[in-house]
């Protein structure tokens, strides 16, 4: 059997990309055949028959020039609009429920810290026919998340979170490549995406150590790093209480304000002095070097689960955080403040 010369169409976006691709192939074939044909035809028909022959005296024609300016322009604009539509949909995640996955790229592996499944390296399990939203960052240089069979790709940058989505339409195992050159092991930074049927996926999730979710790991860290010694109602307001802070507007010293998004939370932990919350002293130590990107994700994920009111319930499942009233019961202050009495635990979680 001949090996297939075409990638599988395994996501909702793939057929759309391919349709555009075939359109362009058709246009290209047309022009290549046209040009090659005309060249050959003329070259043979008007080949030089006598040594001193010269060509006819033709200088140009406005009508022709305008025609072959406008027709390509028109075709090109079709390509542009079509391509732009596909791109826009691919890079703008639609609202609504989706499975959320964190991705961490580093030289030279992909890490997928557990949201609700298992910690994975170079392998990602996702359910079929369900939207998957990836939030990715890099620990060192630029990498790129590339799944050819899904026709998706996005560069993953250090110091920035990038969000991407896809919806697989077929179960099976697909290549995951790092497509941005990242050093010696660039071509080894490969993995696979395992697309599972919903029931298999549930079973796989259940097989994971469910209490070891991202948020609960974050909680452990929060305790071990003694964050609560400042950040709890019991700590005498040395630092702001973090409950419900996520996605809220935070007032800063000097009258400005920021939205407490992932990036802000990250900066607050790594570089607290950069933006000091209104009404507080810049006493928070930096955790740069103490926590790595993965642990940061855990901490942030934990902070996200801290719901404003006392009554809160788990939400680390396959849903958008906003609006879901249920989340995990990991918010009790009692627990956090108990950490105050024993702040000396080893600073970093093992990994």
């Amino acid at each position, binding site marked *: 059997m001949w090996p297939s010369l075409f990638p599988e169409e395994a996501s909702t976006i793939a057929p759309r990309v391919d349709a555009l691709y075939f359109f362009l192939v058709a246009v290209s074939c047309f022009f290549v055949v046209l040009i090659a044909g005309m060249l050959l035809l003329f070259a043979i028909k008007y080949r030089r028959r006598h040594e001193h022959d010269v060509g006819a005296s033709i200088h140009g024609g406005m009508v022709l020039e305008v025609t072959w300016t406008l027709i390509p322009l028109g075709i090109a604009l079709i390509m542009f609009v079509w391509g732009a539509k596909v791109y826009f949909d691919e890079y703008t*995640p639609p609202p609504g429920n989706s499975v959320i996955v964190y991705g961490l790229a580093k030289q030279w592996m992909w890490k997928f810290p557990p949201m609700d499944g298992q910690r994975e390296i170079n392998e990602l399990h996702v359910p079929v026919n369900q939207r998957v939203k990836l939030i990715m960052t890099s620990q060192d240089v630029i990498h790129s998340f590339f799944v050819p069979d899904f026709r998706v790709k996005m560069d993953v940058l250090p110091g920035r979170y990038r969000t991407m989505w896809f919806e697989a339409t077929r179960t099976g195992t697909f290549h995951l490549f790092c497509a941005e050159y990242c050093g010696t092991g660039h071509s080894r930074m490969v993995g696979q995406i395992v697309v599972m049927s919903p029931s298999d996926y549930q079973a796989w999730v259940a097989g994971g150590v469910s209490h070891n979710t991202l948020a609960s790991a974050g909680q452990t860290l929060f305790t071990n790093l003694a964050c609560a010694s400042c950040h709890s109602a019991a700590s005498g307001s040395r630092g702001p209480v973090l409950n419900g802070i996520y996605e809220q507007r935070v007032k800063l010293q000097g009258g*400005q304000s*920021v939205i407490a998004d992932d990036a802000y939370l*990250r900066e607050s932990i790594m570089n607290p002095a950069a*933006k000091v919350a209104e009404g507080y002293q810049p006493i928070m130590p930096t955790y740069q070097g103490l926590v790595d990107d993965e642990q940061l994700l855990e901490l942030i994920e934990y902070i996200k689960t801290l719901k404003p009111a006392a009554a809160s319930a788990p939400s680390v499942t396959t849903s958008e955080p906003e609006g879901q009233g249920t989340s995990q019961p990991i918010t009790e202050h009692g627990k956090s403040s108990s950490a105050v009495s024993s702040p000396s635990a080893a600073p970093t979680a093992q990994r």
Partner: protein
Amino acid sequence: MAIEHTETTEHVVPKRVYYTIFVILMVMTYTTVQVAYFDLGRFNAVAALLIAFFKASLVVLFFMHVKYAPKLIKLFVLGGLFWLAIMLGITMTDYMTRTPQEFPMSRVNTVQPLPAAHVPTALLG
């Protein structure tokens, strides 16, 4: 050779012009320093740059004789500026339309708070 180019580059500018320009340049330097100490909001930057632009134009036009130079040279000067504008302008189309998420980690938004709709909650999942 080059019979079409008969415009001269030579044009004697009276000395007086140089001294006048010099005085204006010095005064403008003083002004720009003074202006920097007033709080004009975002117009501090505008004022500083306008003054700089004005000063630079004087130097170009008079000290560098562009005012009296052939068209070709004027074209090159404008061309250089135009290309600089391309570089600055088109690069900024990216930075000015980025959502906060698309910036290097966490940018304070100083001038005015973003409308809530601008915040890409959807992006964050």
